[in-house]
């Protein structure tokens, strides 16, 4: 079976934080301890939603050294594919669920002399675990957290109270904005910047830092892409000898799995590279949406990341 190893958990706490965000606590069904993790790690939550198995990654926000439970915070996305709606509407206290071992694609670079965190909205969650990790390590950090308004500012009060000198909150509705250029300019040599939030914010931070001479190795971001719907298409899986129809609202990876073909994956969000698949033949155009392949690889058409990318055209043959 692909993906990280699985853990059977039960839901032991459901805490609505505000209109959009709810927190879930998981404990092991067998009462044992959960693995420790490192700040920035996520878990893939399996949801049995009618006939569909949904696998969505969520950042672990609890203390990485706390082994009795994990917590995640889920923002409801009414326009999404249904994973967050399932969590908000279907999951009840005491439910048993399957989650994956923690996987970290957004870890702290511990060579850094200082960590500069930039969060937008629900992008705060990985930083909550990283901040707890740095508390133990006595690391130097600073958080700049942009929220729509006070009511939707998940964990802002708690952070401001516990870390008044490190935490800086910005409310869009009060026309407060991060002075990014000034902020980046003033950082001591050896600072690493981490950004998690909407795509526009990630691009803004990465591009500004790069233009100001920040080394690429000092810029870290995490953006889980959700697979986007697209035109249905057919794919032939040569190694398995199967032809699979990919529907409008499912991803290529999900369609492959539906047909019982075991395909590798980890993040399911175009970031980790685990599901990279070789294209044997194609006639048509790729819709590459991942963060993994380089622009050259995308143009070459020899590889595809089936978790988020699609295909439009006559025929596609994969080595799977």
């Amino acid at each position: 079976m692909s993906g990280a190893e699985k853990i059977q958990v039960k839901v032991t706490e459901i805490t609505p934080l505000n209109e959009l965000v709810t927190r879930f606590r998981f404990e092991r069904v067998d009462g044992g301890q959960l693995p420790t993790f490192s700040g920035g790690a996520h878990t893939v939550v399996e949801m049995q939603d009618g006939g569909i198995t949904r696998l969505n990654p969520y950042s672990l926000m609890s203390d990485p050294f706390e082994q009795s439970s994990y917590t995640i915070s889920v923002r409801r996305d009414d326009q999404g594919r249904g994973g967050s709606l399932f969590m908000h509407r279907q999951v009840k206290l005491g439910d048993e669920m399957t989650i994956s071992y923690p996987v970290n694609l957004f870890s702290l670079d511990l060579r850094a002399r200082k960590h500069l965190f930039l969060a937008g909205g629900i992008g705060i969650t990985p930083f909550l675990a990283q901040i707890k990790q740095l508390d133990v390590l006595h690391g130097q950090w600073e958080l700049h957290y942009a929220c729509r308004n006070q009511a939707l500012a998940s964990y802002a009060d708690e952070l401001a109270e516990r870390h008044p000198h490190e935490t800086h909150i910005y409310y869009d509705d009060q026309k407060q904005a991060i002075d990014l250029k000034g902020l980046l300019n003033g950082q001591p040599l050896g600072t690493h910047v981490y950004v998690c939030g909407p795509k526009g914010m990630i691009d803004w931070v990465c591009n500004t830092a790069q233009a100001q001479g920040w080394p690429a190795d000092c810029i870290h971001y995490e953006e889980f892409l959700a697979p986007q719907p697209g035109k249905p298409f057919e794919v032939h899986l040569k190694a398995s000898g199967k032809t699979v129809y990919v529907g409008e609202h499912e991803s290529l990876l999900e369609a492959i799995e539906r047909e019982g073909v075991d395909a590798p994956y980890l993040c399911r969000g175009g970031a980790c590279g685990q599901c990279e698949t070789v294209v044997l033949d194609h006639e048509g155009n790729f819709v590459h949406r991942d963060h993994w392949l380089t622009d050259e690889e995308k143009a070459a058409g020899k590889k595809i990341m089936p978790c988020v990318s699609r295909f439009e055209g006559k025929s596609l043959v994969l080595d799977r």
Partner: protein
Amino acid sequence: MSKFEFPKSIASRPVWGTLEFRSGEHHLMIAEAEGAEAVLDIATPDLMAKTHIIYIPRGTDYADKLRALTPAQFYEGPSYGAALPRIRRVLEDAHMGLQVYLTGTEGMMGQAMNEAMAVGLPHTAIQTEHRGSTARRMQCVHCKGITEDVEVDPFVCSHCGLNLFVRDHYSRRHAAYQGVRVDAEDHGNVPEPKGIYE
């Protein structure tokens, strides 16, 4: 000509680059001897307006040419050791956006790179260009002493006196190549020293 094409070698051997302008708020250029030529090659008035040049002549005389570039700051020091307190102070006070350029011997570049890494700059972000002497900074794997400016192979360790074979095995932490006793099995059987690249 101050450039030298190093023969291809094992993965441990550092591969030096060619300096190029990279955008940044401040620029620190450390040039040793003929390394000054690499600085002259990429200097533009805009770049120099934000550049601090640290020049270690070691018998060369590029000071006037470098001064003529009118960098924001210019320092000339008699040796790397003499320049080190300044290098450390500059790095300690620097902000992100600083670009670091190192050019000269392998020994100087390796040591200065360690200083930049010590303040948290990833080694991938530090630019280098080899110029001038191909002499190596060698660490004796037996006594751990460092012998600077080794031009021949084998050579005598300046600390313990063993005859050492010059390896391409490099330590980033020590900024030195490793020297291993050449006559370990047959004491006294020491080959005639010749230039490292002969």
